[in-house]
């Protein structure tokens, strides 16, 4: 139980996907302009991360590892995740149209998101078992949600600010992203001490 909680809090706070591992920066900058789209994107990411882990972990453990094909993980994972997201999209469209409308436009965007691939590969690298992998996936997604929501708030202030011309647009956004990332350094050590 303790290991599970450590994993959960580590990936949400100290090892945040966006702010300390620099995964998923593309949606982090692209979709964080408005709070509601930021939340929609993040929920879709949580969903896809959990689904992807549930599929890739068994594939690695029962198909690739026994055959000595560990080096194939990246290409197989990309293939499987891409197909999975498409499948989920079709199923949602048919059976849960409300959820499809909420997540629909974000799902194709996440198909090749590096954060999703990153989570599945980190699960293997850290030699997590299936439960730990799922916690890691959902936790990383929640961390992504936290970063997106915080950054959407920051950006709504940046939008009305008046930076020098050369800083306008993406540069000032990157600078503010860096400052938010630095603020997350403040969580350093908190997990170790919480569960010491």
């Amino acid at each position, binding site marked *: 139980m303790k290991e599970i909680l450590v994993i959960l809090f580590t990936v949400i706070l100290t090892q945040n996907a966006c702010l300390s591992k620099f995964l998923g920066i593309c949606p982090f900058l692209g979709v964080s302009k408005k709070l509601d789209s930021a939340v929609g994107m993040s929920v879709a990411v949580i969903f896809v991360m959990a689904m992807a882990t549930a599929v890739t972990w068994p594939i690695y453990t029962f198909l690739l590892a026994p055959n000595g094909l560990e080096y194939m993980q990246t*290409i197989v994972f990309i293939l499987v995740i891409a197909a999975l997201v498409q499948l989920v999209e079709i199923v949602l469209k048919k059976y849960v149209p409300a959820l499809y409308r909420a997540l629909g436009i974000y799902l194709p965007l996440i198909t090749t998101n590096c954060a999703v691939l990153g989570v599945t590969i980190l699960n293997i690298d850290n030699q997590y078992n299936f439960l730990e992998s799922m916690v890691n996936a959902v936790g990383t997604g929640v961390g992504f949600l936290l970063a997106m929501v915080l950054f959407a708030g920051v950006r709504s202030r940046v939008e*009305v600010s008046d930076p020098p011309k050369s800083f306008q647009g993406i540069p000032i956004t990157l600078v503010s992203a860096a400052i938010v990332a630095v603020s997350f350094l403040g969580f350093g050590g908190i997990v170790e001490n919480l569960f010491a």
Partner: protein
Amino acid sequence: MEAIFTPVIILVVTGLISSIVLVVAAKFMAVKVDQKQLDLREALPGANCGACGFAGCDEYAAKLAAGEAEANQCVPGGAAVAQRIGEILGVAVDNVEAQCAVVQCNGCSSATDTVMDYQGPKTCAACATFFQGSGACKFGCMGYGDCVAACQYNAIDLVNGVAQVDRTLCVGCGMCAKACPHGLIAMVSVSKTVAVLCSNKDKGAISRKVCKNSCIGCKKCERSCPSGAIKVTDNLARIDYSLCTNCNTCVEQCPTGAIHTSAC
């Protein structure tokens, strides 16, 4: 050889299984999209302005196809689009009631004053976060032109520190109304030319002090209107356009000149 064959076979098989699953899923779980809805979406302008009251052109097309919306609700598209929608749906359409934006403030720089030397970003949204704006009137136009920036048709200009709509250019999409942090801009049918150009809800004595052109809530217009179209609520006159006949009585009666008429 095995070192090459096993990975290739595993990859090919994984790919094959994925593609078969996807093909089967696409076949059996296909959601039928109404051809009518696609045609309707094609006919709409695609500006996603929301003037029809739905969340964008896609939803309006869906509602139209389901028969839950009237064909004449697309304001920017106007009569031409309504006609086209009518053809697709096979129904007769009433003409679109074209709309026009009205900035309900007349506090030009000679009538009102500023109460602070505002040095921040030159946008209304930013200025409004400081004590509801730099103007003496807390309800009025701040004159930084968020509506001007929002207008895709160059129909709004700043004249003497107040936004003014060029009625010949305005298509009635309502983007400016959403951009104004003080909510000054109302969408009014183009056939109605009279408007109360003030949004100050303070008592007459106070609103008079901050702006010479303000509505003081004296109810002279309310009493004089032959069709009973004007009501003063919260010290502010507002016209019920379903009753207004453009007779201009209120324009002549208003002691402060807050009610204006504009030839269209």
